[in-house]
């Protein structure tokens, strides 16, 4: 149907209005603030950050040239846009496909929705780039994606990294047909930690045989669980060949050691080829893990969980089902109203009352307050994470700063290091010339509990403004 010209014009005008007055091509804008922390050790005070075409042109303590458009943030502090190394930003619905425990060819990019509430939440918390990985309820959940919460394009790239999970989560809710009824989709394996390890190992060995057989599925099992399609086996084979990064998700010390054992057995860990793209995420008990192995890994992504092991009475912080419920609670949604939680609770035959799962599924960790400080000694390529859909990285930073990490190191752990880990070190992560103009404007020093996010710039455009949503 031909569109009436008037309507076209109106739509065009509307589109231009929505784009929030973009800076014209070649126009330079200067952000002024009391100081800027570049995340690679430099402090510039006062700070003038000049932006052109969404890129940083310069950062200096000089006043901007006369005639340039200036946005003055007064006494604020500028830091680079935060980068989440693990998140679920923009995932609409469940981040785990329940058709099988092994879904290496699935891509989380297919689940993304840029209008999802977690995208705004991410911006409010200062995230301008986030790695979205599949959930942890599959043994091999699939491939992640890199998103830009503040940008029109949102999906920066569909990533190749594979997520492999260890611990109780992949088996959570699974049971025997006798207990659950044979028609229940969760009447399946694995239902123990050892089953999870077995399945991970089997999948990679299957992939190796798949390659040996000339990339034919051949005699391999064609039934779930396990990789049974050529594309799945191919994805795993790429990881074995070192062409595809792998992320091991393991939280307790036992799970971490099991994950590293499997990685060594199946050939993901090659001694001669250190610093390959093998990362580990979780590490709640990392301080007592195998330090030499951590040093040889590409990167560590450490969960900083809410809780007060120093002030709390118990050395063991138990994180039962609330690990699931956690994300919902923090997002302000009751687990019963959250698809993933209610599904999981239903599967595990739990009520939706908070804490109801405590007695039924229990994961216990010996959490130590200075975990991150000790781990950073073994491998300085360490990024922070909080197990939330849109991680509160500044909050996680406050926690580690309170317990011995210097503020400068903590800032790198939520900006520069995760940016390098995503292979975007040349584009984001610091306030350096030529990089994307991703800037978080803070009311004070980062990691102070009295500081809040005032505004967020993504590619030089203001993507979040706290003044617009705070009731005065």
């Amino acid at each position: 149907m031909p569109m009436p010209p008037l309507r076209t014009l109106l739509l065009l005008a509307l589109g231009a209005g929505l784009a929030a007055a973009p800076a014209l091509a070649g126009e330079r804008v200067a952000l002024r603030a009391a100081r800027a922390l570049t995340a690679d050790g430099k402090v510039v005070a006062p700070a003038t950050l000049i932006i052109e075409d969404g890129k940083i042109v310069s950062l200096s303590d000089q006043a901007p040239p006369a005639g340039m458009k200036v946005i003055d943030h007064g006494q604020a502090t500028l830091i680079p846009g935060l980068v989440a190394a693990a998140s679920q930003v923009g995932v609409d619905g469940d981040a785990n496909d329940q058709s099988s425990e092994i879904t290496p060819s699935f891509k989380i990019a297919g689940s993304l929705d840029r209008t999802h509430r977690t995208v705004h939440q991410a911006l409010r918390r200062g995230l301008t780039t986030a790695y979205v990985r599949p959930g942890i309820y599959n043994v091999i959940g699939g491939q992640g994606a890199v998103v830009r919460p503040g940008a029109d394009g949102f999906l920066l790239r569909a990533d190749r990294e594979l997520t492999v999970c260890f611990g109780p989560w992949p088996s959570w809710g699974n049971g025997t047909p006798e207990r659950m009824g044979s028609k229940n989709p969760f009447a399946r394996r694995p239902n123990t930690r050892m089953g999870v390890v077995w399945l991970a190992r089997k999948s990679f060995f299957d992939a190796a045989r798949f390659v040996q057989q000339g990339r034919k599925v051949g005699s391999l099992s064609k039934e779930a669980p396990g990789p049974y399609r050529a594309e799945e086996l191919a994805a795993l084979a790429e990881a074995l060949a070192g062409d595809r990064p792998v992320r091991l998700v393991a939280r307790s010390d036992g799970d971490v050691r099991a994950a590293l054992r499997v990685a060594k057995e199946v050939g993901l860990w090659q001694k001669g080829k250190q610093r390959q793209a093998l990362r580990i995420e979780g590490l709640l008990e990392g301080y007592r893990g195998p330090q030499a192995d951590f040093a040889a890994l590409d990167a560590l992504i450490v969960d900083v969980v809410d809780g007060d092991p120093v002030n709390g009475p118990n050395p063991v912080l138990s994180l039962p089902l609330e690990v699931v419920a956690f994300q919902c609670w923090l997002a302000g949604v009751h687990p019963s109203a959250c698809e993933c939680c209610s599904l999981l609770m239903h599967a595990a035959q739990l009520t939706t009352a908070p804490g109801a799962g405590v007695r039924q599924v229990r994961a216990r960790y010996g959490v130590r307050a200075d975990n991150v400080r000790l781990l950073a000694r073994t491998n300085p390529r360490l990024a922070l994470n909080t197990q939330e859909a849109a991680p509160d990285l500044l909050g996680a930073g406050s926690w580690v700063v309170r317990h011995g990490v210097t503020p400068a190191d903590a800032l790198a752990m939520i900006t520069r290091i995760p940016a390098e880990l995503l292979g975007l070190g040349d584009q984001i992560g610091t306030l350096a010339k030529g990089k994307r103009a991703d800037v978080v404007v803070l009311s004070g020093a980062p990691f102070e509990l009295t500081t809040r996010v005032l505004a967020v710039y993504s590619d030089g455009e203001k993507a979040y403004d706290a003044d617009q949503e705070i009731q005065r």
Partner: protein
Amino acid sequence: MSRLRLLPALAAGLLAACLAASGAHADDVLVIVNAKIYAGDGKVIDGGAVVIRDGKISELVAPKAEYEPPYGATVVDAAGRALVPGLVVAHTWSGMDVPNDNAPVAPFVSTIDAIDPSSLFFASQLRNGVTTLGVYPGHGTAIGGKGAAIKLRSDTVNGMLLRRDIGLKVALGVVKRVRDRGGWRSIPTPRMQTLATIRKAFDDARAAKEKRDKALAAAKDEAAKAKVKAIDFKVAPLVAAMAGELPVVFSCSRPGDVHNAIELAKTYGLKGKLVLRETAFKASAAAKAAGMRVILDYGLEHREQDADSDRQRIYPIASLLRKAGHEVALSPRANDRSWISGHLWFQAANAIKWGLSAEDALASVTRWPAQSLGLGDRLGSIAVGKDADVVLLSGEPFRTRTFVEQVWIDGKSVYERRKDPWLERLYFKPKTAPSK
């Protein structure tokens, strides 16, 4: 008193006598010198000294003043670190095994019978600088009972007790938590029912009081007066509340609850205070007009989503209440040891983040809650004549890296970070030097 009960009392007495003898030489004088004193009433004295005698603050010494501590006094060098008043929790229902009575109307119960001095909540609060708490019944009972003010200075309830019967708890948005299939479930009680229950209880109490007054008036002589039955103990607290002798603490979770509280206070002549939970802060103007003090529950920011624009709106509650003219008291989240909301100092830092001034934030965890407890003359600031409840911090107040170094209650040291067994055993060796 049986001999069995007398024995421990005797032992305690002996012990107290020994303790007193060992530390009594300089009249129990403690001097904290070289401190940055945040007095809690707006004054900041950098490099001053606090002189504590017999559990009270006897002198504040200005910086650079010629001051010689008395011979034999215990002198503590604060090395320029911050000294703040002991933090005060105006309202909590933690520290008890079961905070709610099973009956909907139980004005006659008192939390002193339920307080568990060995509760880890108290240990955790002390480690975070709290010295005084107002412990009230929970909000699962319409008329919950009487609260008590305690100091974290002892391991017995009697030793902790500062003042009993500091207020009567009335919950307007009653949420009952019941066990359900191995977990807990919350059941809200209809407000109509709650209000009717509360009104009936007060009406009955008023009738009982009038009946007794009438009988007293009819009695011809003293002998006849003595024969008139006293008011039933189950009703007496309500009568005391109507006489203005027992303040009433209303727990509100909706703005409407605040209006109901004001109405109840007017009808029955109650002296009321409000605990604002959830969205109740929206009635702050009405509360101010009615002259009621407010205690803010742990939630410091309220978020709403506009259904039309999908845009979120954030209400920074503490600063909105301050703007409405309230002297707001902050509270720690109940039974929560997480650092996010379980501690007053964190609540204060968070309030500053949302726009409260640093001075008001300190007042909202010291002076204002003390006034809210009716103990403003004894607690809440470092001033001459007040109780010597002071907290030495490792750095500036409300900073991320600041820990509580030492706590004194009534001039006695009750907590030292470097001797804290939990910290030593489980985590790291705390540094005694200030963390910069």
